[in-house]
């Protein structure tokens, strides 16, 4: 395996900035977030994980789909230009795996062109988690703190620098010019996480759809959108117009199934009028609907952002445990 010293790594990133826009975790007023950097000094080298997942770099909170303007009375549609080569540096394997899950949905026919355009320009250089901590649970849901799925390059911090593992051709290309040295050492193994099993959950979810358990689980929910907006695999959006005189811009913005109006149709009928129904939608989408559509993969990567940030401590791990008891009872 190859290794790169921390100094060489910084030099490599600095030279990358000529060709690529480099996004990395930074500390913004006490919050770790992915932002474009102009110097490697801005990188939060000691971060655990970002508050907002790096999905926001490929699937922005708000993006323009097109503008429509009238030229001599003739309507003209223009799409925004997306042409910036970008390296996302330092994302965690769970978030990279989540991006692979977004790919499955957005790249599925018909291809979501705005997403695909961005995605094609992005190279993902990940950092393995050497010291993952509970409530993270990637290992219990098909991932690993040093997993490579979705990544182009995986780096693992060792004592003498970073172990570098190119995963894809794109990854090899981005590493060109990096001062890599061969080493016989092996990357450190990540610390163990508490284990629990999600086996058989998807198959049995349909049986418990009407269980009263859901209402109890979600009783404290305040219907905010933290769990969905901070979820690296959530990708619901809203499409809205903005008018300026005769010109119109159509944009899409993140939206969340937790909002009361999410599924309400004009005329007032709301198929998911209760917070229990809405939270169930969140859970079922991850653990049943997505897997049914995309080859059995559960759309949760165990990053535990929803667990850490839920204002009222609704703990998805606990829900899974309770469900198993409910199913077996």
């Amino acid at each position, binding site marked *: 395996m190859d290794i790169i010293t921390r100094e060489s790594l910084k030099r490599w990133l600095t030279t990358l900035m000529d060709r690529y826009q480099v996004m990395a975790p930074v500390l*913004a*007023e006490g919050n770790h977030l992915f932002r474009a950097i102009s110097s490697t000094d801005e990188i939060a080298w000691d971060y655990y994980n970002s508050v907002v997942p790096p999905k926001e770099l490929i699937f922005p909170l708000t993006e323009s789909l097109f503008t429509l303007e009238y030229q001599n009375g003739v309507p003209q549609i223009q799409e925004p230009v997306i042409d910036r080569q970008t390296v996302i540096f330092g994302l965690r394997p769970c978030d990279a795996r989540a991006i692979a899950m977004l790919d499955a949905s957005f790249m599925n026919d018909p291809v979501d062109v705005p997403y695909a355009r961005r995605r094609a320009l992005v190279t993902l250089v990940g950092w393995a988690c050497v010291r993952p901590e509970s*409530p993270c649970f990637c290992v219990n849901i098909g991932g690993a703190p040093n997993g490579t799925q979705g990544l182009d390059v995986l780096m693992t911090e060792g004592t003498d620098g970073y172990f570098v593992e190119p995963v894809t051709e794109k990854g090899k290309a981005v590493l060109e010019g990096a001062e890599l040295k061969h080493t016989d050492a092996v990357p450190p193994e990540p610390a163990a996480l508490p284990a629990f099993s999600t086996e058989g959950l998807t198959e049995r979810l349909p049986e418990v759809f009407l269980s009263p358990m859901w209402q109890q689980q979600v009783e*404290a929910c305040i219907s905010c*959108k933290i769990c969905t907006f901070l979820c690296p695999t959530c990708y619901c959006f809203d499409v809205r117009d903005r008018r300026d005189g005769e010109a119109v811009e159509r944009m899409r913005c993140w939206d969340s199934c937790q909002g009361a109006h999410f599924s309400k149709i004009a005329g007032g009928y709301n198929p998911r009028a209760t917070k229990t129904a809405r939270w169930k939608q969140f859970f079922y989408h991850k653990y049943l609907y997505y897997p049914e559509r995309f080859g059995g993969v559960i759309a949760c990567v165990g990053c535990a952002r929803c667990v*850490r940030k839920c204002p*009222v401590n609704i703990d998805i791990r606990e829900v899974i445990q309770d469900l198993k008891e409910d199913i077996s009872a």
Partner: protein
Amino acid sequence: MVAVENITQLIQEKARELLSSGQVELVIGYQRASDGVTARPAFVRKAEDAGKLIFDQTCTHNLGKYAIEHRGKSLAIVAKACDTFGINVLIQEKQIVREKTYVIGINCPGVVESSFGETGDRLQYRCQICQEHAPAVFDYIVGDPILEKPLDFDPYAKVKELEALPQEERIAFWEKHFDRCIRCYACRNACPQCYCTECVVEQIDPNWVGAPIQVPEKQIFHVIRAFHLAGRCIGCNECERVCPVGIPLSLLNMKFSLEVEQQFGYKPGRDPEVCAPLATYQPDEDLGIGG
């Protein structure tokens, strides 16, 4: 942390009594969270479940939020001193019925800063500046009365520091913070004083505020939210606690609290009989505006 075991015990006993006598159908309190160290809201409907209720200095949530959700039911609610101010506001605004709401008030030692899996001894800022540790409304009171000590610093110091900054820096300060907002609405939804069934920032027809998650929309949301709480915010600061991206929302709410206190000498929730400042007026007052 201050020893509060006896409070837990008293709450459990009271909950048991209220539920088994049928006086209330629901007790809203706190229970241990899944991390084993912090707290989360608990909903107890059977006397035999009362044992899961707890109280300690991690019980930060303002449970008044749920009193609105369960309005119409006879319920008991565990409320810290500041939470009772919020209950008073809700009574004043006819959102809940006093007679149907059994308030288990707590002489509150203050709550500590905590996050998932982590807690410590450091009091939350709102508790550091608190000078009213006794509940304003209650049917049953637990905890030893707390000796009120005058503060040796200005509770509004942070607001005043920001006020004193040059205009450009204030602009930069707020734009930097609003930029991080993701419009998750946790601040609004955690607030017991925000109970509109349809929020003006989400209203579609008319669509006052667009859906984009961009600084103009965020600014309008935060300003309107703060304004709608002017003279109503009781300073529980749950909005700031739940914000996933650490926006100092207390600096918005406290600015209004400061103005309301200075201009109208009013503090919300202390007495439900006194009218809120924006719901009343004095015909001949001079507010330095209008002429």
